[in-house]
């Protein structure tokens, strides 16, 4: 475990670096290198975000996106794990599905939006569809790979101790694959987050994607940049404090860290 003081020092370092980035941003703005209707200053962005927060649209939108994500991602994770376990259990399923999922993964999440609209119209189901299609394959592949990479020696050791059949799956193979599965879920969350914002961009009347779209409609560059920053911020926070935390504790337990 790293020293607490070390962590604090790293966090302070990061903060200084971010402030430096904002300073560069301000410098570029002040130098008038770009037209200011397309390139707002940090202050304008901050002011716009405060306005959006005051009138309640920022909070409501962030909440809407997160709720959609919670539902869509839960569905996606369940599907991804189920498919991944199937692929891990059957060589045939793995061979057939892996090429399909690798293909699906090359598609940007926004490319799922048109077909989602055709299939589900202007309902929230379209958003869930985009989330699932964006993130399921990454989790399925990570789970399948995690299972394929389980050291055969663990299985032999368990067999000699009398474990076989389904018990081998849940007592040995799944726990052994867990670090990779958790890594896949973490990646899946990021991809799903892309998906939800992409879908909202085109279809919806609330959500971070919707606020981005409205910013563009109203030629409000400060809103566009501000919402982008909020999207990144929420994505990073969940990644670090939810999935990152889980990943770290699993890796520490398995002795994979340090």
């Amino acid at each position, binding site marked *: 475990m790293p020293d607490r003081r070390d962590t604090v020092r790293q966090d302070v370092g990061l903060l200084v670096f971010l402030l430096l980035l904002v300073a560069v941003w301000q410098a570029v703005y002040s130098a008038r290198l770009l037209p200011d209707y397309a390139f707002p200053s940090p202050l304008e962005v901050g002011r716009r975000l405060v306005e959006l927060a005051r009138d309640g649209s920022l909070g409501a939108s962030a909440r809407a996106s997160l709720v959609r994500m919670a539902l869509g991602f839960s569905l996606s994770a369940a599907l991804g794990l189920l498919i991944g376990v199937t692929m891990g259990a059957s060589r045939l399923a793995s061979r057939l599905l892996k090429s399909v999922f690798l293909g699906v993964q090359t598609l940007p999440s926004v490319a799922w939006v048109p077909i989602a609209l055709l299939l589900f119209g202007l309902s929230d189901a379209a958003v869930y569809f985009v989330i699932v299609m964006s993130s399921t394959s990454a989790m399925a592949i990570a789970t399948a790979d995690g299972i394929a990479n389980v050291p055969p020696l663990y299985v032999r050791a368990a067999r000699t101790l009398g474990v076989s059949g389904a018990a081998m799956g849940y007592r040995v193979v799944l726990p052994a694959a867990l670090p990779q599965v958790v890594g896949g879920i973490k990646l899946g969350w990021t991809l799903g987050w892309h998906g939800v914002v992409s879908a909202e961009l085109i279809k919806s009347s609330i959500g971070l994607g919707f606020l981005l779209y409205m910013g563009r409609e109203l030629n409000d560059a400060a809103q566009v940049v501000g919402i982008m920053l909020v999207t990144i911020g929420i994505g990073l926070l969940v990644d670090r404090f939810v999935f990152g935390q889980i990943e770290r504790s699993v890796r520490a337990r398995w*002795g994979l860290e340090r």
Partner: protein
Amino acid sequence: MGARPANPKIRLEAATKTFDARGLRVDALGPVTLTADDGEFVVLVGPSGCGKTTLLNLVAGFEFPTTGRVLVDSGPVGGPGPDRVMIFQEPALFPWLTVRDNVCFGLRQHRHLDERERRGIAERHLALMHLEAFAGACVHELSGGMKQRVALARALAPEPRVLLCDEPFGSLDALTRERLYGELQEIHRQTHTTILFVTHNTREAACLADRVVVLTGRPARVKQVLPNDLPRPRDFYNPRIVELASRILDELKAELDVVGEGSHAG
């Protein structure tokens, strides 16, 4: 050692094993006929790659003989089972479990035990290996020697009647190894488990075995059987151990010469 009992614990009857590796036939085990009595400590030595591990795999039930038979308690081996636990060169502990839960692992198959009894048995076996202080530790916090001792405790907790050891001390340092010789002999004294132990370390063989079986190069056959009834517990530095080790080494060297000539002629 007197007359052998009619029904040995383990019996190989002209067992052979042939592998088909990418269209290439590999004879791993020549016809081997071998017995181990109940409670006997049999050490198998042979040139590396001679098929010692294959022999253990047959008894463990991981593989089946191509011809001949492998019997445990007079019945053919049908697959792996907790009555014949194998330990490997790598400790193969499960990193997601604590030391205690690793030792409990095989006991979970024993449905008649409740959780408290399982823990009790696990702690008793950890104490036998002087590891009771590490019951709650994570696997990666242990040294190599400690891990192998946990592996031993895990293998012994379900009280198997046969313990199969595939060079379990091969990757440990000399000091740790010598300590484990003492502990393994003590366990054997207490449990009377039948042990089939594979090694290429002649001193190790001489120190541990009731009977040393020297195998030929691949495909392994029984070349020589050396009984060893030196009193236990044995000291690794006992001159008679050293003497027996050098006899084993002579047998092995003769075997290497034969293999060398054979390949020369072929």
